[in-house]
């Protein structure tokens, strides 16, 4: 067989079986004939030929080919009928066992992190001067600054949507003024704190996880530990405190914007003057409504901070690990906020707040 011309991987390569077809040659000798540029495609072709010859008990000679091509052919062992690796069979029982193990591992990590945080806070209470107050203030500022635009927009729109939806129903009964009650109560008790918490979870919680995760990948957390500084005290506590303090403040701001949103709809669509809307809101929404909403925000903030710091500090040491940690911090944060909110709904109901 004569082989010539250019052999390129990105151009079509003839199949060995197609070259010979049913023509029965006794032995095969490959000879170069005006062989131009060649690359692995020629090697592949000849390897196929060698396998074909071996299968049909023929001799295969390549001695006439360039020396470096022969060397490459020798590197591919004769027996390498390469098979793709078998797909790992996933058995349900193994999957269940490994998932169970993972869960147990995570649960252990979470509990130990919570314990470390608690001990850390006790330590801060004993020696307040050793706390990183400056870091805490910087985090507060960042939390406020990064959340403010989104909180403004979202809570104003939530007020608008609520007012709009309820107005359609209430107008039918000539009870349009009660839009103020509905918007006021639902925003102050539930939606203001919730919306603020979601935005903080998506912004600040994610930032904590990404920051701490990156610090872990770059061994910065290890460097702290070997200097004798507890990474929880140094990194997690200032952030936890910052987000716990900022959360009620942001929620209060969200409440104001939500009520303003309702007021805007009432004034423009329902022809209820802003002063009447305000008086109605004041009559219906009491101090206990506002404070109950803000009180649970402390726990929302704590939950978001814990989720962010925990995911960041237990992050896997890779770029993908930081990504996973960040998204998981947001998901965990939002889930914890909703769980806490449900819990508070029951508690407030029992207490009659």
């Amino acid at each position: 067989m004569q082989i010539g011309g250019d052999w390129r991987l990105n151009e079509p390569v003839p199949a060995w079986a197609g070259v010979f077809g049913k023509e029965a040659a006794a032995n095969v000798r490959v000879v170069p004939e005006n062989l131009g540029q060649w690359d692995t495609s020629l090697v592949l072709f000849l390897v196929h030929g060698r396998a074909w010859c071996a299968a049909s008990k023929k001799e295969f000679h390549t001695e006439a080919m360039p020396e470096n091509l022969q060397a490459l052919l020798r590197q591919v062992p004769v027996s390498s009928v390469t098979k793709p690796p078998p797909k790992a069979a996933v058995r349900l029982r193994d999957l269940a066992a490994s998932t169970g193990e993972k869960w147990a591992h995570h649960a252990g990590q979470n509990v130990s992190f919570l314990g470390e945080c608690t001990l850390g806070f006790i330590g801060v209470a004993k020696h307040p001067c050793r706390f990183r107050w400056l870091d805490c203030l910087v985090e507060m500022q960042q939390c406020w600054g990064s959340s403010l635009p989104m909180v403004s927009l979202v809570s104003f729109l939530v007020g608008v949507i609520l007012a709009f939806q309820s107005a359609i129903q209430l107008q039918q009964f000539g009870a349009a003024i009660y839009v103020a009650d509905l918007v006021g109560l639902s925003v102050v008790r539930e939606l203001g704190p919730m919306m603020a918490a979601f935005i903080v979870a998506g912004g600040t919680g994610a930032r904590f996880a990404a920051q701490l995760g990156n610090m872990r990948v770059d061994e910065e957390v290890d460097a702290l530990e070997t200097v004798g500084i507890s990474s929880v005290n140094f990194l997690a506590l200032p952030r936890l405190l910052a987000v716990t303090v900022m959360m009620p403040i942001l929620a209060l701001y969200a409440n104001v914007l939500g009520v303003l949103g309702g007021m805007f709809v009432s004034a423009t669509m329902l022809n209820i003057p802003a002063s009447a809307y305000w008086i109605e809101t004041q009559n219906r929404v009491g101090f206990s409504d506002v404070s109950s909403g803000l009180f649970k925000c402390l726990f929302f903030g704590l939950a978001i901070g814990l989720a962010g710091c925990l995911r960041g500090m237990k992050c896997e040491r890779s770029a993908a690990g930081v990504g996973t940690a960040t998204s998981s911090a947001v998901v965990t944060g939002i889930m914890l906020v909703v769980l806490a909110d449900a819990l508070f709904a029951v508690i407030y109901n029992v207490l009659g707040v």
Partner: protein
Amino acid sequence: MNDDPNVPVIEVKSLTCGYGETVVLKEVTFAVHAREVLFVIGGSGCGKSTLLRCLIGLLKPFQGDIAYYGKSFTAADAGQRRNILKTFGVLYQNNALWSSMTLAENISLPLEEHTSLSPADRQEIVALKLTEVGLAGSEELYPSELSGGMQKRAALARALALDPAIVFFDEPSEGLDPIISREMDELILQVRENFGTTMVIVSHQLSSIFRLADRVIMLSHETKGIIAEGAPTELAATSADSHVRDFLKRDDDLPDRVNKNSAGSDKLIKNENKT
């Protein structure tokens, strides 16, 4: 601190460690003596970094004991642990400078944590340490504003902040160009001369090994333990294990291999011309 020369600075006794259920090192025993420069070498994945992480307390060993100046580190309570942590500095492979702080803050944080020096004194020490590593005047720079070599020196300055008796190095010349890596070696020698520091260095860099090491221990992936121990030149010449000799073969021992390679490539070029 215990200054008895007979007590080894670091003593590792039948240390077994690993991650999860994988054992990386099994029954490893060795000692490091005062003012000694010990290199830990071995192929990739043989557990060098794992050993280092155990020594500096980032990884809890499965079994065995690590003692500093005769006092157990593995069994130490929080207070003793802190005291031991004070005696050593670590230079990490990725430098691990705290990226949100300036160099001055990076270097003064260990001082803040372990000493009662006044801020002015700390500032003085920071300037001194930075000068020592050739970075005078860069106090207010952030790590991200420095080149790789400068970051490495800054990290060394931080590791030396407390004038530790022991310094651990994880791949000190990894990713540095040959000139800077030589400067790094000079710096290491200089520190040892000035302070009599004991050093444990994890590295592949042959030139550094022969320039700096008093003794090397070589770990092996197969035996999960130490396969050779001794002075590098001695090991390279007389070790019974051919793997050890191969590992420590210096470039100037390889002239014929280099020639053979270049002859091979000549032939390749000729062939190409022919075809």
